[in-house]
């Protein structure tokens, strides 16, 4: 019971902090907007209609990818909150409380994932505003899938941050993880048409399965999926479990 309430209160804190950060919410529109409008339209018209997938514009193709990218970047960014808490001393208050480290990790992780999910919903809404068709069922189906994707990604961010002492070093690691994961996820292209070596890398990337799942849901029949939806979800699920175990371990050894 104490553990459950500890979990709830840590979750609530992360969500409250996010909702109070207006600048972050407003700026979260901007990057996806650039990708979808400037990059999407720009590359789309360079291809002059020679679209590789019949029935899809380039913007439509990358839209689920940009949703995935938003989840990835937001999730990794959440790791900063751990460093922040360490630097401002609040982590001590949490670590010394009579709740288990697993509860502390899960509370923070699910809280941060909720924040990332809200970011993802904002991008979905942005897509609707740009005229991308998402029916109500697909919209609702996206929510649990997005949450599933963020669990593992947030866990990576929190794990890395738990080993780090300063905000500067976290920034460096971010660019070594964020961009490779993003580019190799097929967010901007079809994985099937890649050369073999790159396909291998893409298939080793957990985000690939997330982007593929989101495309299957959002684009429907016009999209030729890499894997069936249930395989995607199973791979993401296994990845989540592994990362949660690693993250809990990382928090256990944190002082």
């Amino acid at each position, binding site marked *: *019971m*104490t553990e459950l*309430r*500890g979990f*709830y*209160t*840590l979750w609530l*804190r992360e969500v*409250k*902090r996010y909702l*109070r*950060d207006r600048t972050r919410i407003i700026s979260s529109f901007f990057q996806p907007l650039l990708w979808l409008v400037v990059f999407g339209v720009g590359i789309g018209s360079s291809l002059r209609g020679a679209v590789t997938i019949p029935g899809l514009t380039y913007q439509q193709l990358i839209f689920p990818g940009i949703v995935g990218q938003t989840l990835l970047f937001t999730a990794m960014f959440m790791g900063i909150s751990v460093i922040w808490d360490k630097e*401002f*001393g*609040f*982590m*001590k*208050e*949490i*670590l*010394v*409380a*009579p*709740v288990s480290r697993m509860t502390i990790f899960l509370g923070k992780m699910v809280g941060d994932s909720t924040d990332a999910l809200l970011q993802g919903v904002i991008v979905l809404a942005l897509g609707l505003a740009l005229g991308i068709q998402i029916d109500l069922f697909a919209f609702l189906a996206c929510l649990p899938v997005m949450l599933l994707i963020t669990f593992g990604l947030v866990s990576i961010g929190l794990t890395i941050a738990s080993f780090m002492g300063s905000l500067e070093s976290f920034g460096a690691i971010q660019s070594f993880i964020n961009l490779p994961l993003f580019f190799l996820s097929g967010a901007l292209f079809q994985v099937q048409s890649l050369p073999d070596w790159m396909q291998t890398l893409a298939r080793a990337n957990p985000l690939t399965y997330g982007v593929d799942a989101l495309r299957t849901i959002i684009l429907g029949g016009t999209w030729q999926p890499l894997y069936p939806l249930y395989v995607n979800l199973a791979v993401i699920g296994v990845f989540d479990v592994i990362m949660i175990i690693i993250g809990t371990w990382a928090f256990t050894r944190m*002082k």
Partner: protein
Amino acid sequence: MANVIETNQLTKTFNSLMAVDKLNITVKSGEIFGLLGPNGAGKTTTISMLCTILKPTAGTAKVNGFDIVKEATQVRKSIGIVFQDPSVDDRLTGRENLYMHANLYGVPASEQKSRIEHVLKLVELQDRADDLLRTYSGGMRRRLELARGLIHYPKLLFLDEPTLGLDPQTRDHVWRYIRELKETHDITVVLTTHYMDEADRLCDRIAIMDYGKIIALDTPTKLKDTLEGDVVIVKTNNPDALSKLVAEKMQLKKTRTVNGTVEITVRNGENLLPRIVETAAQNKIHVESISLRAPNLEDVFLHYTGRMIRADSGKEPHGIAAIQRRKIR
């Protein structure tokens, strides 16, 4: 009276540095116990071990009857801690910080509201409870942390430098709260400080720590009595010559120069004042002023260690400035 804390050869080393050296102390139920010493003496390390934040290198300790290593969770549930460094979430309101703490420490939901109102009243923060912490002053944050440490009704409260960096008025406030707590809630308080006056006015018993060891432990009054005398302070143009003169010609061995003044610890100091002035005049040393005061804990520290509470760490200019101001006055 039961012992709330018992340590047995409690030791902590960081690589080759001996931070806490075979510490044996007992803290009785209901007292305010002070750990006094310069920065780096091992006060915070001691408290961190008792709070189960740090594991001891050797030795053991019991807090509220629980072993600090084997029964860490029970220890944590039974104590309240106010850390030396701030540890509040400044993006949440005061009340939200308190609710969070109540939930983390398993305070029954039905009691949370009334307890939070109570502690807010105790530290006089009811009016600001719903403002974000980032709008609070340093003193207000400190008071909120104090309130937070009390929500789960701990039997034992650890305060690590509770008034560090606070202005004199706020320090007075905090001292008053701590005493009130002890009297109205029957809480045992263990605090660390390097403010001499704080330890003197607040604590029932004081352990003076230096280099990880307890060098003296008693009530403030008895500690000061060990000096057996008053302190004579002489302001002069030539402190070194005068102190040599007093020590050799007048056979007053407890003579030293401190910040350009000569200090002599001696019994019946008032009878000695004219003789000192006379001796100085005979030797052409000009005495600007001479005064007499009762010994304080700084003198006690000096007596046991041969030096003043180290002022060379530079980490807390506030404390050092405060000590120096008092010396000059």
